[in-house]
């Protein structure tokens, strides 16, 4: 219990420091949201000043940070400069859509990577392992944007899949079953792109950890006793490599809100990606700050969960 509490305390401290640092960096970088109005010949400088004052940008940095904290306490996470509505609700809608894409992709990734990685480790150095290893390192070197675009091109040429978005234009949101089918069809391509991007690193880690475990004395002993095949893998190798893999799974949680950003932009998936890219370029500070906090919460939460899981299964950690 004390372990959990102290970890929670640290997590809160991390969140606070991240918010201060992010805010400070945003302050340091040049330019401001209303700059593009200054370029608009139709808008005078007085109006821009009035808009800045309205948005509270004329206050000092400290005042703005304190105000932002107050807004966090109210659950608003600031007011978006571009949309003039609370960041909290803006992010919440988008996060749901992002998770709809990333959670299944992550799950599938692990479902492929675990057995495949273990199998590759056991057949290390054979042709199949070599091919798969080379393949995965090749895939590691592909930018996600390129993967997404290539898949879109495929969709266009074959006409089998919709070329982006989450719903068909004419879908009736009242009919739940149709909507579900529609979303599933639209999600397929971004889902594939995401799996292609996420799989290689996980696969490599699973394989490496499994190789580590295979060479461990316990496994050698088991093998000496004539235990082979999937029984050896499941009963001996997997538990031994569980420790680093659980840590990795904790880190994977962070990818839940960050891995799909560029894919979402290219495939017009209404997740965090398009909002964040737009806000980043427009310097919509509250949205960027809110999104960073969200990413931190997920990261810290994932690590916390991993620690708790380790605490539960690995007695060595409990000291």
């Amino acid at each position, binding site marked *: 219990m004390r372990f959990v509490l102290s970890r929670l305390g*640290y997590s809160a401290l*991390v969140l606070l420091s991240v918010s201060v640092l992010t805010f400070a960096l945003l302050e340091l970088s040049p330019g401001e949201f209303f700059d593009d109005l200054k370029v608009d010949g139709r808008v005078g400088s007085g109006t821009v000043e009035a808009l800045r004052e309205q948005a509270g940008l004329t206050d000092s940095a400290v005042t703005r940070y304190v105000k932002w904290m107050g807004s966090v306490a109210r659950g608003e996470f600031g007011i978006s400069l571009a949309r003039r509505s609370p960041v909290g609700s803006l992010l919440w809608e988008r996060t749901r859509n992002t998770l709809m894409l990333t959670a299944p992709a992550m799950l599938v990734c692990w479902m492929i990577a675990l057995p495949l990685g273990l199998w590759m480790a056991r057949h290390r150095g054979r042709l199949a392992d070599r091919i798969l*290893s*080379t393949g995965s390192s*090749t895939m*590691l070197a592909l*930018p996600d944007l390129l993967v997404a*675009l290539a898949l879109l091109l495929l969709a266009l040429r074959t006409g089998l899949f919709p070329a982006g978005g989450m719903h068909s234009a004419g879908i009736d949101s009242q009919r739940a079953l149709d909507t579900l089918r529609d979303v599933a069809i639209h999600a397929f391509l971004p889902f594939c792109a995401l799996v292609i991007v996420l799989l290689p690193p996980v696969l490599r880690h699973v394989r490496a950890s499994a190789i580590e475990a295979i060479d461990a004395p316990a496994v050698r002993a088991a093998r000496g006793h004539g235990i082979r095949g999937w029984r050896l893998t499941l009963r001996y190798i997997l538990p031994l490599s569980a420790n680093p893999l659980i840590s990795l799974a904790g880190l994977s949680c962070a990818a839940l809100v960050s891995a799909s950003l560029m894919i979402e932009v290219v495939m017009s998936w209404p997740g965090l990606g398009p909002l964040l890219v737009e806000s980043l370029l427009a310097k919509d500070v509250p949205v*960027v700050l809110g999104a960073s906090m969200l*990413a931190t919460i997920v990261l810290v939460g994932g690590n916390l969960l991993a620690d708790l899981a380790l605490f539960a299964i690995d007695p060595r950690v409990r000291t």
Partner: protein
Amino acid sequence: MKRAVTVVSVLVGLHLLILLAGFVAPYDPTTQVRTLPFAPPSRIHFVDAAGIFHLRPFVYASAPDGAGDYYVEDMSVRYPVRFFTRGARYSIVPGIESDVHVAGVDAPGRLTLAGTDGYGRDVFSRVLHGARVSVTAGLLATLCALFVGTVLGTLAGFTGGVVDRIVMRAADVFMAVPWLYLLFAVRAALPLHLDTRAAFLLLVAVLGVVGWARPSRLVRGIVLSAKERAYVRVAEGFGASPLYVLRRHVLPHTYGVVLTQAGLLVPQFILAEVTLSFLGLGIGEPEASLGSMLGTLQQYHVLASYWWMFAPAIALVAVAAGYHALTSLAHDRARLVAS
């Protein structure tokens, strides 16, 4: 062992190719030939239009046809491929300059092995020169990340207690902060006149330094477990100084992890530049880098129309695969040593 030789020689070959970019590339990477935008790779012929076989390979000059979207070869003049020709001046390392190129054809023929980009610049030459910038940047950033990461990770793991906690919390923070804005701020503080490549390398180095968190965690884990080993305890018991123990017994265990990370980070930092150049933080025109060239490839019309623009992706995959192979080699060796 045979595999090790292959991997190492392939990597060395790749780097030699990149280092000697000026010599291997037939053209200067920034020279524009405005009559030949997006021209496909020149075809190397042995048999001419009349059906006569030539021992020395040759190319034909090509010219855009009508609307300009495709090119036709002008079969009237042959441009034989010559070796060790003289062309644009280049330098291999500062001080060593030359104008001899491995191969080339006489002007106005063009030997474009990987086609041209939108300005009619030779993509093959740009990939070689760009790889030089990108690999340098990737190595530099990796070095920064690993150096800071190893120092802090070792410190945390070896000292333990409060220091450990502070460093690890800081690592959590560093992993979550959007450093992009730091780069914006740094870029704004730099004078515009700074050499394009120098400015770029500086930004990448900053990116490397703030990327210390992940390697430091891994190093700390290794140090922690190494510290607990029996022989380390014994050495301490014999009164060995902490520094000696660290150097002789603890640090050697981290080499494997550090090498593995290096192999992963180099391609990762090269890829990071794709995003950087999109945000105006990449290398400026007309210089080339793999990242900025990949950025061009990500424009839909380029991706859909000009297959040879994939050349930087292929180069990146080759470099990345080389480094990955090296790390798995290092991994195997580390395990051999450990057992």
